[in-house]
């Protein structure tokens, strides 16, 4: 006999326990706030103001212009001048500077000849982000060069960057951050849900009642779905007012996609819950899942840059699909139909994990 009262009873019980668990409650609000501050303010992949030293052997007006232009790009910040390139490399080795600019004595002649580069850029390329930034500088130099020859200031080519014109990383990061935060909290909450009952001895009573597996599982999920949606709203609001992150697509689509993603994470948490013997183990397993999610999903590093094998693994992770979906909706204004493949992948993942959780959970102690 099915009985809706039973499902509601489980939901009500979870909500009551949750409301009394201050630590968990703090996590629900605390994690999104902390993460958005961290990623929004502290972590910035758009590198600026690299400490730079200059060797200006030309000492001409043109070389002064070049240095001024380089500083105006905000990529470099000239902190000192050096005698020669040996000193430059010495300082770089000691970590005092990240970039060195060498302008040779025959700088102006080189500019005219056009077959050799006029000046030299020495970069601490150990950090790929810095290298990338420095490469932007060489582009700038090219524009200088052409200005000089053509005289009318027409650039060689123009960079077209319609989705994030100011190259603000917050705009790109916040949508993905929704996925990261949900993965972190949702999996963890449900992963400990059943383990906690076992540890506290409640399970022995619970499995001796007529409650069914599916009622127990779904009943435990529902409160967290609502919490997940609240978290998303919080992130969207913070993103909007702190970082002016736009939502180009439909807000309804954002919530629908998120709802599916929340479900995927919660059911995964349930599977972990049936596998783990203690709350600590559940936490370890969650972390084991969380790490590849963050690294491989395309949230941190571009998906296309990863080796084939890593891409296959990434395809299994719900976060990979969600990052694609949510960036599609929020940044490019795509609608759900255009992202159908990733949505199907999430739906499949959810169905599969819920089935596994229900099958794996036995109303037995052995």
């Amino acid at each position, binding site marked *: *006999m099915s009985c809706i*009262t039973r499902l509601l009873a489980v939901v009500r019980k979870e909500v*009551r326990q949750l409301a009394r668990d201050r630590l968990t409650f703090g996590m629900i609000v605390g994690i999104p706030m902390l993460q958005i501050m961290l990623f929004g303010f502290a972590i910035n992949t758009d590198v600026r103001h690299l400490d730079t030293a200059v060797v200006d052997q030309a000492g001409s007006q043109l070389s002064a212009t070049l240095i001024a232009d380089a500083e105006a790009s905000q990529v470099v910040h000239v902190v000192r001048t050096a005698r020669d390139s040996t000193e430059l490399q010495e300082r770089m080795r000691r970590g005092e500077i990240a970039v060195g600019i060498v302008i040779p004595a025959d700088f102006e002649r080189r500019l005219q000849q056009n077959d050799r580069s006029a000046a030299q850029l020495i970069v601490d390329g150990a950090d790929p982000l810095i290298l990338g930034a420095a490469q932007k500088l060489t582009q700038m130099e090219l524009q200088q060069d052409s200005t000089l020859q053509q005289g009318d200031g027409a650039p060689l080519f123009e960079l077209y960057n319609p989705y994030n014109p100011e190259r603000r990383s917050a705009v790109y990061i916040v949508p993905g951050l929704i996925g990261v935060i949900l993965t972190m909290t949702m999996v963890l909450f449900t992963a400990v849900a059943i383990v906690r009952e076992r540890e*506290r001895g409640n399970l022995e009573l619970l499995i001796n009642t007529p409650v069914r597996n599916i009622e127990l599982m779904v009943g435990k999920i529902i409160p967290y779905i609502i919490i997940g949606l609240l978290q998303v709203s919080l992130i969207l609001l913070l993103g909007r007012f702190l970082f002016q992150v736009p939502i180009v697509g439909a807000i309804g689509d954002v919530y629908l996609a998120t709802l599916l993603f929340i479900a995927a994470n919660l059911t995964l948490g349930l599977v972990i819950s049936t596998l783990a013997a203690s709350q600590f183990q559940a936490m370890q397993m969650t972390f084991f899942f969380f790490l590849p999610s963050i690294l491989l999903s395309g949230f941190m590093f571009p998906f296309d840059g990863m080796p084939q094998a890593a891409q296959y693994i990434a395809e299994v992770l719900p976060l990979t699909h969600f990052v694609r979906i949510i960036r599609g909706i929020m940044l490019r204004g795509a609608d759900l139909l255009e992202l159908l493949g990733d949505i199907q992948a999430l739906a499949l993942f959810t169905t599969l994990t819920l089935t596994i959780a229900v099958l794996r959970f036995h*109303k*037995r102690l052995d």
Partner: protein
Amino acid sequence: MSDDFAIVTEGLTRRFGQLTAVNRVALRIPRGRIYGFLGPNGSGKSTTIRMLCGLLTPSEGEAVVLGLKVPGEAEALKRKIGYMTQRFSLYEDLTVLENLQFIAEIFCLPRARRRGRIEELMEGFHLTELRRQWAGTLSGGQKQRLALAAAILHEPQLLFLDEPTSAVDPQSRRDFWERLFELADNGTTLLVSTHYMDEAERCHGLAILDRGVVVADGTPATLEAGINAWVVEVESERARVARNAIAPLPGVFSVTQLGARLRVLLEREIDEPQGYIQAALDQAHTPATSRLTSAGLEDVFVAATQGRYRGGSA
């Protein structure tokens, strides 16, 4: 035939790795009675109860509970049985009332009856004042009353109580047993595990378990009558000295001191037990009186757990 019995088991066995926690247990527990499981720690009481509820799968053997085979038909059984676990298993961060409401809803009690039943139980178990208190903050006796109330909320035909009165004062224990008898009078079958002799004595029938084996079973009276040992009581001012004189004697297998008295268990083969003991005391120049007495349940328990209950006669 099996309708007369609430529980019938045959060769019920449960192993955990090398350890045989329950070993070929055969039980016939009649309906409407209080049946006791008496046994020391680790003797397999909880394991047996868990198998009967369908929570553990037996390694071997069969069990039929209320006419249903377990663990196969355990789901159908859940509505008909109540189980009060050894460890408090209600939610400590829910209040008394919330816990009872949760159980009532989980058992799908009709909405109209839910309220009345909860009120009735809170009244009967003196929980009304505590209704808004978190279950985790209740005292031991209060927790135990709440746990029993929760276990009988859906009016089960069969109630399993696993050491329900550990951590409860004697007065509360008496009250608690009053309720158990009330339930039995109303037709409920109860299976109670305990280490207390006085509780075992209250049961209609009982089984003594030792290391997973039923070493004795019957009513308290038949168990006492059927003991395969002599019981001699010794009274002495110097009980410890008397004890040292008696304990090494061949045929003496248990000496228990109770203040100035000693309870001595001897093998049945000894012809004149009282004279035998008295002679040993006199020889040790220990002033003491001794007399042959009838066995109590504790003597049966001691004899049975030392393998002396059926040792000679059976």
